[in-house]
């Protein structure tokens, strides 16, 4: 298990990748973000985006999934997040795009009230052309080694 103490400022990592399909863009849009440029190929072609694009909240969800899969692989003791400093949808994510995420730890600090530690992380999503499509700077909470059950500390 990796704990808060194992995460250090400057640590970088590249998460897995995901190829976005038109079907999943439309399915997400139908449920959560039914705007024409996320929902309908024809309407999207006539919009300023020139074609179907994923909801920005869908891009964030894909970034989250890639993060959770990486946390599981590395057995990191993540326990959620109090929030996000900033999120920028810099370029549209389109059907057929293959996206990946690179991350960098900006800072870490312990909780003063709970047996947890915080990290501030910058995560950039890139498409297959190497263009940054999404940047999220957010805070993560992790268990601390000394207080983890069964850590023997």
């Amino acid at each position, binding site marked *: 298990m990796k704990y808060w103490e194992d995460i250090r400022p400057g640590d970088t990592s590249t998460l897995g990748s995901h190829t976005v399909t038109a079907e999943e863009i439309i399915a*997400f849009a139908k449920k*959560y973000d039914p705007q024409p440029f996320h929902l309908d190929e024809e309407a999207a072609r006539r*919009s300023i985006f020139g074609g179907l694009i994923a909801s*920005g909240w869908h891009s964030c969800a894909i970034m989250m999934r890639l993060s959770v899969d990486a946390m599981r692989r590395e057995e990191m003791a993540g326990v*959620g997040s109090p*929030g*996000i400093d*900033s999120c920028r949808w810099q370029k549209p994510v389109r059907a057929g795009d293959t996206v990946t995420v690179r991350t960098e730890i900006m800072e870490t600090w312990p909780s003063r009230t709970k047996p947890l530690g915080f990290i501030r992380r910058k995560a950039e999503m890139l498409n297959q052309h190497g263009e940054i499509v999404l940047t999220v700077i957010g805070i993560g909470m992790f268990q601390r080694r000394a207080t983890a059950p069964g850590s023997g500390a």
Partner: protein
Amino acid sequence: MTDLVYFEDVQVGDTHRFGQYAVTREEIIEYAQQFDPQPFHLDEEAAKKSMFGGLIASGWHTGAMLIRMLCDHAIPGSATTGALGFDDLKWLKPVRPGDILSVETEVREKTESRSRPDIGVVKIASRVHDQRGETKMTLVSLVLYRRRSARPAAG
């Protein structure tokens, strides 16, 4: 047809309240299976043993519910064309099955785009409340509005 609300029509301080989003256990688990498979979003038993004491929605799922309420109530009457992103998102309290969410928005700031004369950026603070009036999530969106001056004559 009712005229749309353009950048020029938006006033700093404008507030709106809308939405009634009923959160179900099934939807929390379905979203989590696809996008955020952490035990406290996915599994009632594991969630009970976690620091949250029961199943809670992914924070990104709450964000998705917010955009759904905006799509249903706020966006249709507005000349918006997407958003640049958001700042200062805070997940203040867990969203749980049975919660009924609503939204309160307030216009904070308007900026004309320097690069695009047909567009303005409006900072809109959104607060997501539950049925008890507790605030679950807040954020400040950077919404793109078309400018009335740039509207095609036949509009």
